[in-house]
């Protein structure tokens, strides 16, 4: 635990130094501090998960009035999330360093808020005092908001950023309400099951955390915000901050112990909706980062499916199924924080060298940025859950969890729900496949579709791209190592008697690993054979043009053209608005076509609701006169009312 504090202290020190130091060295110094802190936390989390035999390390600090005794502790779940966070911070701070080194006018507060953000995340995972947790949660929100605002460029996007702040605070107040009720009920600030309204409290906490984790009805802040942020901030949001939402949900479940069955079904239902909704909207986006934002929503849904089905299985007492589901959720959380930042970093490279994020203007970037292209390919294959790469293990484990639940518990309701979950998961997987096949091939392959001048990628961006690609490949090949990492948290949570289930899981994953090694070596050998055999037997020519010998890059399929076939078959869910002027007359003028897709929750629920609120709340504007004397009078009225209340009470 001391080491975690040391790490967090190093983050904060780096942050504070970045304000004091002269501008030339501040970036390097605070970067080094962050790296040192991350490595310390990474090693102690690894050590805790793999080698240590201690069940819990804790430090308690006495505060005066509001908090009383505050307990910081790491148990295995905290250690697992510390691992996710600290491992990601290394690449994230590097990317931030590179990004700020490139910009001429970067603010010195960039690193300050980044360090605060990191430190708050690290401490939020370890604290077990609900009010301190909320405070750290708030520091996290504010520092991330500051990061967003520091990179603020266009005034039109300002409402979306305020939107983020508002959404986070709605979530925070829901959490605060639930925490206060629970602490009043149990008379302790340590989260545990309340005596009454257990299910409702669980759902409230779930909703509060879902604002951070972007589950579906709570998501609309994300897709607008991500595109405008630099890659390291969006990667930190998607890779780490969203995982804290998952951490919160897991922590709530563990603290509550037994929760009503309907909660499990509610979590599963919301997650299924999230998965499907996220991916179909990712499919039609033309902005790379917005696509990635929606795809993050989908991945949170997948993790949620694992958690939901785990809760259901545990309620029925099917431990193997439950362990598989939870293991799948945790493994997918870990993998997602590897490949999603990787996608963001490579998208950033694309944006830097081409100057646009619009998929329809890109194409052929692979020739300018081979490393970023390959990294994007690896990350795409990972996110589609292709065996050999990170991403398969988690989904596979969730599938097995659902299947085991079906086999063990053949009651009609469970089976229908599980079969539905599996089919929706598979459907989302299939759409994810074509989404990323489209994104990768439209951005990186073919020829460029616009007159933009593309530059070559710089070697500075290689480090996170190459390292993270290797990590996703290795964790795809050796999934049993991931099982080892999650075994400690799950055994600590559910008790040592499930050790046998873990034997079965690791056996299964060892077999999978064996097959993956065979598969990857077969691919490698055959590719080498193809490479060497075809040497000197290749003639380079143009693409076949069906009789036309001067093809234009404009005839290539665009992203929209690619997705049009499929999106028309799910047009019921997608809100497509077309704008077009078709060519007419003997001498046709300009013709154009534009299609936009609207988020249903935003356009059908939130906007009308906001309109209504604005209307209803305008009543209060009568109170606000803008006259100081009147406000003082209000204060007097309030004081008078308070005095009367106290006297009446006495």
């Amino acid at each position, binding site marked *: 635990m001391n080491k975690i504090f040391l790490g967090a202290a190093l983050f904060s020190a780096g942050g504070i130094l970045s304000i004091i130091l002269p501008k030339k060295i501040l970036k390097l110094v605070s970067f080094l501090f962050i790296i040192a802190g991350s490595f310390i936390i990474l090693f102690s989390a690894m050590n805790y998960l793999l080698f240590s035999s201690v069940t819990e390390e804790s430090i308690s600090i006495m505060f005066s009035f509001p908090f009383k005794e505050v307990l910081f502790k790491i148990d295995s779940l905290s250690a697992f999330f510390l691992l996710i966070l600290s491992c990601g911070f290394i690449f994230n701070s590097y990317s931030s360093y590179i990004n700020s080194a490139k910009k001429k006018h970067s603010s010195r507060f960039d690193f300050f808020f980044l360090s605060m953000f990191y430190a708050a995340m690290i401490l939020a995972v370890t604290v077990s005092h609900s009010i301190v947790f909320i405070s750290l949660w708030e520091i996290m929100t504010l520092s991330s908001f500051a990061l967003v605002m520091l990179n603020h460029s266009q005034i039109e996007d300002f409402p979306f950023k305020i939107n983020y702040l508002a959404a986070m605070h709605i979530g925070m107040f829901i959490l605060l309400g639930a925490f206060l009720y629970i602490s009043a009920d149990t008379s302790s600030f340590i989260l545990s099951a309340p005596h009454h309204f257990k299910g409702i409290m669980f759902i409230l906490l779930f909703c509060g955390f879902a604002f951070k984790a972007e589950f579906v009805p709570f998501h609309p802040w994300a897709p607008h915000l991500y595109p405008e942020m630099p890659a390291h901030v969006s990667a930190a949001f998607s890779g780490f901050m969203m995982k804290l939402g998952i951490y919160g949900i897991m922590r709530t479940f563990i603290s509550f112990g037994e929760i009503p069955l309907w909660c499990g079904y509610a979590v599963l239902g919301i997650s299924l909706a999230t998965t499907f909704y996220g991916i179909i909207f990712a499919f039609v986006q033309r902005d790379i980062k917005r696509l990635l934002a929606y795809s993050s929503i989908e991945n949170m849904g997948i993790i949620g499916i694992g958690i939901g089905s785990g809760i259901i299985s545990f309620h029925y007492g099917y431990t193997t199924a439950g362990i598989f589901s939870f293991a799948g959720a945790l493994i997918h959380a870990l993998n997602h924080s590897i490949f999603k930042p990787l996608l963001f970093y490579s998208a950033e490279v694309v944006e830097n060298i081409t100057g646009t994020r619009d998929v329809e203007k890109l194409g*052929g970037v*692979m020739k300018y940025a*081979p490393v970023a292209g390959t990294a994007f390919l690896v990350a*795409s294959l990972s996110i589609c*859950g*292709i*065996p*050999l790469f990170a991403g398969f293990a988690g989904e*596979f484990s969730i599938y*097995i969890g659902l*299947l*085991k639940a*079906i*086999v063990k518990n*053949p009651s*009609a309701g469970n*089976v*229908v729900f599980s*079969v539905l979950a*599996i*089919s929706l*998961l*598979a459907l989302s*997987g*299939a*759409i994810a*496949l*074509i989404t*990323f*096949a*489209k994104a990768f*091939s*439209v951005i*990186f*392959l*073919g*020829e460029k579709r616009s007159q933009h001048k593309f530059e070559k990628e710089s070697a500075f961006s290689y480090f996170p791209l190459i390292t993270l690609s290797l990590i996703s490949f290795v964790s795809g090949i050796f999934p049993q190592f991931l099982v080892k990492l999650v075994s400690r948290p799950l055994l600590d949570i559910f008790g040592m008697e499930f050790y046998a289930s873990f034997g079965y899981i690791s056996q*299964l994953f060892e*077999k*999978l690993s064996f*097959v993956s090694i065979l*598969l990857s070596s077969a*691919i490698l050998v055959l*590719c080498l054979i193809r490479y060497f055999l*075809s040497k000197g*037997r*290749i*003639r380079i*020519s*143009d*693409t*076949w*043009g069906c009789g036309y010998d001067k*093809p234009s890059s404009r*005839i*290539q*399929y665009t992203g929209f053209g*690619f997705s049009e*076939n499929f999106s028309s*078959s799910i047009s019921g869910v997608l809100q497509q608005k077309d704008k077009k002027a078709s060519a007419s007359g003997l001498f046709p003028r300009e013709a154009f076509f534009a299609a936009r897709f609207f988020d249903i929750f935003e356009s059908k629920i939130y906007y009308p609701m906001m309109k209504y609120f604005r209307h209803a709340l305008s009543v209060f504007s009568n109170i606000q006169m803008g006259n100081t004397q009147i406000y003082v009078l209000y204060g007097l009225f309030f004081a008078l009312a308070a005095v009367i209340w106290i006297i009446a009470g006495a």
Partner: protein
Amino acid sequence: MKDTILKYAVFGIYIIIFPFIYIGLINKLKNIWCGRKGAPVLQPIYDFIKLLKKKEVISSKTTFVFFFAPVVSFVAVVFAALVVPGPYGISIISFDGDYIFFAYLLSLSKFVSIAGAMDTASSFEGMGAAREASFTSFVEPAYMMLLTTIVYATGFLSFQQILSVIQGSTGWSFITGAPIIVALFIMLLSEGSRVPLDDPKTHLELTMIHEVMVLDNSGPSLAIINYTSGLKMCVISSIIASVLIPQETVGYRYIILFLVIIAGCALVVGAIESVFARVKMSHVPRFVFTMVSVAIFVMAISFLKIFRGVI
């Protein structure tokens, strides 16, 4: 030991030779049906060898993705073949949930073939890739739903165990057998890009799906692609064969019956191609959705089996 070697040998011969014979049989039947003599059944092998010997023309616009895509797709389908019970009734690789692994291997093959097609910067190939992507994306969930309902009824999680239960002569397997085969056959037609979803013999780019994706492949890479597509159909036919063969059959009888059924599948594909026109492009998803209704039917029958013990 001897048995194992024999098993691998039979399997090896099967996956090397049969994809060619499969395509040869389809073509032969189609030719006879319309009154031609037709090429010999082994013609695809000669074509394969001829293509391997040729030089290759590669577009200057492509990257390594185009160059390696056929090989990666090929390896993925070969591994999918290893998971499915082969002519010996036993899968080479078998573990719990291997049918999920199978689906994701087919996905890998699809991903790289789409990327390979898009790499050529050709509008035709983009069109083919877009069609392939949208039409086959319903197959995977339908397949998962079907297999999951079968898992529910049988209680096993690996291909080999599932199929050995289906082969048993219970009422459940008799009732559900035929619909399952129909569903798998739809999957065979769509994964293999055959009529009524796609017409491999069409000669107009605008109407092609799979064929248009490989317009720029030539020589060895075209040979590999052709073989892979034959192998894919063979693999799915193997599932059908394993469903059909009764449990009691063992030894060489199993092998013979298995190969006969595979050949039968090829002939049915050929017959369908001879008598049916392909469906309208926009109707293809509906056709694929038949698999979902079969899955729901199987689920209903399985409820009867598990709760009432009727069958």
